[in-house]
Each structure stands twice: as C-alpha cells, then as structure tokens.
C-alpha cells in the first residue's frame, strides 16, 4: 500500500523537478497578488496588519488553484492515468500519492514563503509563526479538496474556470480557520483553537478526498 503511494509521489516529484517553471510561476503569482494589496489599499501599517491574514490566505487559495487543472490532465492526455486506474490496487491510493506530491510542490513552498511576505505587512513574529503553521496545516486540505474538482472537470472545455467555481466554495472552511488563526494571534487571543480545527479539517479532507477523486476519475475514464 505504502509502496504504491511512495512510487506515485516519487514519480510526480521527479516530473515536477524536470518542469520547475510550473512551481516557480505559481509562487510568483502568490508574491504578486500579495504585493498588489498594499498598492490597492494604501500603506498604513495598522490597516495592513489587519488585512494580512486574509490577503495571504486568499492568495494561497488562488495560487493553489493555478496548478490544480494539471493535476490529472497530463496523466490523462498521455495515457498514464489509464494505466494507474488499471493497476491491481485501489485507485484511491495512487490519488493519495498524487495529492501529497501536489502539496509538496505547491502548498509547502507557499507556506515557507508566506512569512517573508508577512513581513511586508508588518506582522509580529508570533503571528508569522502561526501564519506558517496554519498554511502548513491547511494547504494539504486544499490539495485534497482541489483533487476532487480536478477529477470532476477532467477533460472538459473551460475546465480551469469550472474547477474554481466548484472548488472555491468548498475551500471556505479552510480559509476561515486558517486566516482566523493568524487573526486571533494578531489580536492577542491565541490561535490554538483555530489551528486544531484546521488540523481536523485537513485530516478529514485527506481521508475522504482521494476516494471521492478516484470515483470521479473512474467516471471520467469510462
């Protein structure tokens, strides 16, 4: 079981490393979106500190969306998805591997980059730590829920926009608890409650999403 998951992760990471441009452009998108906000609302530190959690989290959602359409599309086009579906083990396992690999190349870099951008918004150190922590905890759920949308829209015209339409409403709880944790820290209330709920969401999403995605992929492959 673990062997298959590890094999899929290894393959996807190898492919991602040979196509680094994709990872880098999603990261730059994140940086640019976040940097646009001060230009839009003005540079007052108080206002920026208040906006920072929401802005960083919304930008992280959007940056994750960018890489989702290709999660299964490449494998679908060259026939490897078919072969994965035909392997003698449940497709959900392979999807679990793909979700994890997607997180490693999209969610993890975002979480590591976020504190640097948080500095631009004058966030205090403890809030920066909670920001990184909340992104580390919450982005796996984004990859998992996103995989369902990517599988449902596989091969459809206008798939990318449709994907956002399906997935963004489902991201709302993650956004609320993720940004809420940072918010609460900035306000001096402590973000532990939010963080534990966020962790619960991620566990639930990672348990449920790969199997829902696998079901959607089987529908798409019929």
């Amino acid at each position, binding site marked *: 079981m673990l062997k298959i998951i590890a094999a899929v992760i290894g393959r996807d990471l190898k492919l991602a490393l040979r196509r680094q441009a994709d990872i880098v452009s999603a990261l730059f998108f994140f940086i640019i979106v976040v940097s646009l906000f001060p230009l839009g609302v003005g540079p007052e530190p108080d206002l920026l500190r208040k906006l920072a959690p929401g802005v960083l989290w919304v930008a992280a959602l959007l940056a994750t969306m960018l890489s989702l359409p290709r999660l299964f599309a490449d494998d679908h086009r060259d026939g490897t998805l078919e072969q994965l579906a035909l392997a003698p083990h449940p497709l959900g396992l392979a999807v679990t591997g793909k979700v994890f690999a997607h997180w490693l190349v999209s969610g993890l870099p975002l979480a590591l980059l976020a504190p640097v951008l948080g500095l631009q918004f004058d966030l205090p150190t403890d809030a920066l730590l909670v920001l990184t922590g909340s992104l580390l905890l919450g982005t796996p759920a984004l990859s998992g829920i996103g995989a369902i949308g990517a599988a*449902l*829209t596989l091969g459809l015209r206008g798939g990318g926009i449709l994907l956002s339409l*399906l997935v963004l409403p489902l991201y*709302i709880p993650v956004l609320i*608890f993720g940004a*809420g944790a940072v918010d609460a820290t900035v306000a001096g209330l402590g973000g532990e409650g939010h963080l534990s709920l966020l962790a619960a969401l991620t566990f639930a999403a990672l348990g449920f999403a790969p199997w*829902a995605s696998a079901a959607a992929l089987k529908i798409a492959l019929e």
Partner: protein
Amino acid sequence: MKDRFNLYRFASPATFYPLAGRMIPWFAAFAALFGLAGLYLGMLVAPTDFQQGEGYRIIFIHVPASWMSMFIYLVMAFWAAIGLAFNTRLSGMMAQALAPTGALMAFLSLWTGALWGKPMWGAWWVWDARLTSELILLFLYIGYMALVAAIDDPRRADKAGGLLLLVGVVNIPIIYFSVQWWNTLHQGSSVNLTKSSMAVTMLWGMLLMAFCFWSYAIAVALARVRSILLERERHTDWVKAELLGVGDGERA
C-alpha cells in the same frame, strides 16, 4: 407477473413520462391554492409587528424560500445517491431538474433578505451567518449546474454531478459551522431573525407558503424532467410515438 406492483416500472422513462404529465396540473393547483391562502394569512390576517411594522411581512416569502433552498439540495443529493448506487437513469434527471428551482429559491432568499435587511439593519447586505451560508449554497447550486452543463455525455453528466452533490452535502454542515464560528468571532451576536414568540397565524402563514413552494417545486421539476426525458430519449420508439400523437401525453 406482468401487473405486479413494481417501483422499477415507474423508474422506466416510458411509464414515468405520462405519469408525470398527469401529476403536474395537480401540483400546480396545490401551489396556487396554498399560495393564495398563505399570502392571505400573511398579508391581511397576521398582526403588524410592533417593532418592525409592515416590513416584516417579507418573511412569508423569505423563510419558506430559505427552507426550500436547503431542502431541495438535500433532495438532489438523495437522488444523486440513489443514482450512483443503483445506476437508475431517472435519478440523475431528477437532480438536474430540481437544480434551477433550488438556485431560484436560494436567490429569492438572498434577495428578500436584502430587502428586509435595509429597514432592519440599515444596509442591503450584512455578513450575517445565515445570509453568508445562503450565498455559499447559491454558489454550490451554480457550480453543480455549470458542471452538468459542461459535460456532453448525459451519463457522465449525471454521475459527475451526483458525485459533486454528495461532496457538497458532506461539506454543507462544515461550511455552516465554520461560517457561524467566523460570524460570532467578528461581529458579536447579530440580530436574531426568528422571534421565539411567534404568533400562531404567522407560523401558519409561513407553513402554507412553504407548502406552496413545495408544490411549485415539484410541478416545475416534473415538467423539466419531462423535457429532459424527451431530449435524451428522442431516438426511442416511445418518444417518437409520443411526438406523433401530438399532445397525447395525457392518454390513459
């Protein structure tokens, strides 16, 4: 064996089509009847609210519409589950036929909520937990309809749409809870919409309006299922016979 009562018989399109045709006028009549009675109770009989004046009367539309918007999503998810579990063709069509009505109800609920909010809170929109959840529900309806519309193969559309509905129904409680949490954190307690000391006539008015919306939803959904059926089965013999004997759908 031939005449044994069998639910599967009604799941066959050729049987369902005329049956639905006979049911539509009844539900349409119920809708009109309940609607008139409910509006009469709500607009003329129910007492004026001592705090909110006449403006509160919009709840006779607003509350039933909100109920229906949530209820219809559950019914769609139910049909989706049936369709995925038993591979019945009619289930997917039922879900698709209900979606526009559900979206309409969610939209009505938001619109009347805004109309009510203006005199109550002095603003067209407040980020009240219920309004926000209703907005997200509308997004879910729109996502479902967009997905189904984007898929050409009707079977794949039914199955993919059904899966999305099930994912949505699992998520709705989580979304609702998180919005509630977010709301209390940011706004303190917002204005409570439902008064506990509701007059009996008001309750009856709302119930009658809910029955009206219910009958309306069934009538339109059946009409929509009939057109979906005709479109999908246009190559089959029974549809050809149906279309040749113009308007013969009512035939016993």
